[in-house]
């Protein structure tokens, strides 16, 4: 058959992509490096070089820095510190004159959980929309606790061809939110609960602190990204109302009925609202918020049997659960997931995990531990240049203060963050030869745990005395 180009309709297919664009910081960020020159020695060096190169200005004034730190009017006497990338060439060339170190304001960034490096990573991702790339290998600590103690797998040869961010075959990062019945009951087909597909397995969770601007930025970004944001605020905002996940309680049911949302959450710890909410909002997905602690697996099984459509399991903002002896949410998530699997319930509910999801790599790792998708919280505020005022761990008393922002600027920063995290998720999936993030859920076999590998590989090696 010969196709007539006149009659062939253009495909409506659009490959999923997130439109990132440079969105510079509006509040000045600390210089990462502090560059200083001993001024007398610098002057002496200039005089010496003036003699050595016979006053050849171009040679005498050629600087050791290829990043323009000494390119200002006063050269090394007043370095343009914000341009320094810490390459150390000036120190190599003039060790008796130059000092380069991490600045005090950089070292003070964050809190006991948010390292300066992590804050800078989020700032860069939100402002550039580009994946962080560096040369010469890894520079950080070996393995560690929580998500740091997990490595993801890769596939050498036997695998589907990769997509990578450069695009060949498509890798899906979409996930479904909602209850999935294990069988179809045709008599109840009209009443089966809905599911919603979101293109990236990330939602915005409740903010610890927020101004109207910040909430507006989150709403706009959620709508642009096709994802959702959780808010205790009952009145839908002007921005992204369709993307709102309100947190319902006894008093707000009527309001929720008047302005129904596609997804609602409720605090399962405070009330047993599922029946009421599901009855009043038959077309909404009802998700129970459950704190991660010793009994979370049991609670999750009970709620799933009761019929909830999803579970939002959360730890504190530092990624620790609420057990008497707190452990990282990666461990408690695994326990809940495994208990649901054991009871034959896991495939029926969606699990959202939040608390301490602060870097791109935490998304696939939380999914490997059993979540379907994650919620981010303090990360939103960091991307929007909020101020650290102390420890951010406590959900009820998080010491982070939002700054005044333009909601459109804020929304683009969050879109950039999602774009970069999406690309990094694809890097992880493509290395594993996986074409769908849904396949990653609970697939612990495609991960490697520091603690386990250490015991296997170093077995028989005696402890030093």
């Amino acid at each position, binding site marked *: 058959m010969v196709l007539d180009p006149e009659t062939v309709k253009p495909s409506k297919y659009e490959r999923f992509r997130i439109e990132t664009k440079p969105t510079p910081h509006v509040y000045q960020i600390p210089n990462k*490096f502090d560059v200083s020159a001993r001024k007398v020695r610098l002057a002496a060096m200039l005089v010496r070089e003036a003699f050595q190169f016979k006053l050849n200005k*171009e*040679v005498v004034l*050629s600087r*050791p820095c*290829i990043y323009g730190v000494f390119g200002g009017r006063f050269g090394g006497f007043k370095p343009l510190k914000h341009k320094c990338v*810490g*390459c*150390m*060439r000036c*120190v*190599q*060339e*003039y*060790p008796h004159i130059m000092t380069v170190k991490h600045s005090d304001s950089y070292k003070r960034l964050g809190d006991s959980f948010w390292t300066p490096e992590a804050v800078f990573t989020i700032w860069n991702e939100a402002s550039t929309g580009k*994946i*962080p*790339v*560096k*040369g*010469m*290998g*890894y*520079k*950080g*600590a*070996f*393995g*560690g606790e929580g998500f740091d103690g997990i*490595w*993801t797998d*890769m596939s*050498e*040869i*036997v*695998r589907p*061809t*990769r997509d*990578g961010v*450069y695009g060949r075959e498509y890798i899906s990062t979409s996930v479904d939110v909602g209850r999935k019945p294990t069988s179809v009951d045709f008599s109840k087909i009209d009443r089966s609960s809905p599911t919603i597909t979101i293109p990236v397995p990330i939602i915005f969770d409740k903010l610890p602190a927020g101004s109207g601007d910040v909430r507006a930025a989150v709403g706009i970004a959620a709508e642009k990204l096709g994802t959702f944001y959780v808010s205790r605020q009952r009145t839908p905002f002007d921005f992204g109302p369709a993307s709102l996940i309100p947190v319902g309680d006894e008093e707000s049911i009527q309001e929720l009925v008047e302005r129904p949302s596609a997804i609602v959450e409720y605090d399962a710890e405070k009330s047993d609202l599922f029946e009421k909410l599901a009855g009043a909002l038959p077309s909404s997905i009802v998700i129970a918020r459950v704190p991660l602690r010793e009994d979370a697996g049991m609670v999750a099984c009970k709620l799933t049997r009761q019929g909830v459509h999803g579970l939002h399991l959360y730890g504190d903002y530092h990624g620790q659960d609420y057990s008497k002896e707190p452990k990282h949410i990666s461990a408690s998530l695994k326990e809940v997931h495994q208990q649901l699997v054991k009871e034959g319930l896991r495939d029926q509910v969606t699990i959202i995990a939040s608390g301490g999801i602060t870097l791109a*790599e935490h998304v696939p*790792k939380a999914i490997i531990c059993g979540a379907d998708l994650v919620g981010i919280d303090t990360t939103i505020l960091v991307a929007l240049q909020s101020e650290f005022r102390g420890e951010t761990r406590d959900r009820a008393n998080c010491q982070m203060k939002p700054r005044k922002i333009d909601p459109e600027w804020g929304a683009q920063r969050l879109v950039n963050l999602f774009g970069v995290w999406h690309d*990094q998720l694809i890097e*992880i999936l*493509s*290395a*594993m030869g996986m074409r769908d993030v849904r396949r990653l859920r609970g697939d612990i076999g495609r*991960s*490697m745990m*520091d603690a386990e*590998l*250490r015991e*296997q*590989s*170093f*077995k028989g*090696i*005696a*402890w*030093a005395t």
Partner: protein
Amino acid sequence: MGNLELIVEKHSERIHHGIEVLPSLRHGLPEGLGNKRWTAELILATYEMALTGDLPKNGLEYRTGNSGGGFDVLGWKNNGFARIDQESVDLSIPLNKREDGKKITIPLPIYGGGMSFGSISLNFMLARARAAKRLDTFMSTGEGGYPDEIVPYRDHVITQVATGMFGVREETIQYAPIVEFKYAQGAKPGLGGHLLADKVTSEVAKMRESSMFTSLYSPFPFHSVYSVEDHKKHVDWIKTVNPRALVSVKVSTPTDVDMVAIGSYYAGANIIHIDGGYGGTGAAPEIAKKNIAMPIEYAIPKVHDYLVSEGVRDDVVLIASGGIRTADDIAKAIALGADGCVVATAEAVAVGCTHCGNCERGRGCQVGITTTDPELSRFIDPEWGETRIVNLFTAWSKRLRSILAGFGLESVRDLRGRRDLLVRYK
């Protein structure tokens, strides 16, 4: 001499002088230098060894970094052994343990890893090739092709065949005593290579038979290899083009790295080269370096033990790379089960690398290592670079001999798999 010449000479001399002076600590330990894996002390100690050919004498820590795991929490047992004369210790290892094929032995358990033309400067590549020749060992071309300038060193150059097939030609296969298939690399396990457009100068484009200033991607994986049988076809292809060549298979460290290793062995590999997730020199997404694939310290025992249990350990050479920074790391890797190691970053540090990670920024490396900038590249004079790399490996050989002599071992081959000689620190 024109101004450009004077400027290059001025900075080149200053950098070289600086890296000679800094290890003396006369100006203190530079605060902004280094990181947990390559600490400031380790970088300065490497500068010092590259200068003197000896171990640092001023107390600089030259054995370990500060990463809190892996090699950095392993040490040596220190009692109950009869020390032997360290001059009598043999550091040589064979690179072909199969019955057929050419027998190649290198005098120290180290050779240079793949760093491609384009990602590094030609001068640095030449320095490495010259050092490999002087040390009677090897260096690998990486995947960027085989510049004419390194042909004189071809008896010490491994031709790498990677998925982009850049510069892979009949003659470059025929030059090679060893051909290395790069299935994956530790810097970006499971991800392809990516050379940013800025680095694709006319010379690089010519070498890679591509267009100037256009980003180049090496796909992942080999699209002609989806099984061990396919891999065998690859090996056969090389053996047909160059029957004398030994075949090395470079893979990363997935959960089933032991299976990959045994598959490579049965496909005919002489060398199984495992490249751990924390290493690598090429620019790579940070997420890949930190999170994908297991560190080499955990992969070596897994592969070694499996090859032993399959009864083939003595028929194949196991080479480890990816985060090998010091002579102690090499000895620990061997004690964990490797035959020898491949290093690359340490060679870069020997010629002034600060492990700053800015290799892909702007004009590339500020001291001329990972750059194609014509001015910056000239900071590394190949002869100077050769001497520094030879000195570093000479100092490492002394340390290796000292470790082995302390255990009364006459050959580095006797250290393989001797985990009983290691201790763990909390």
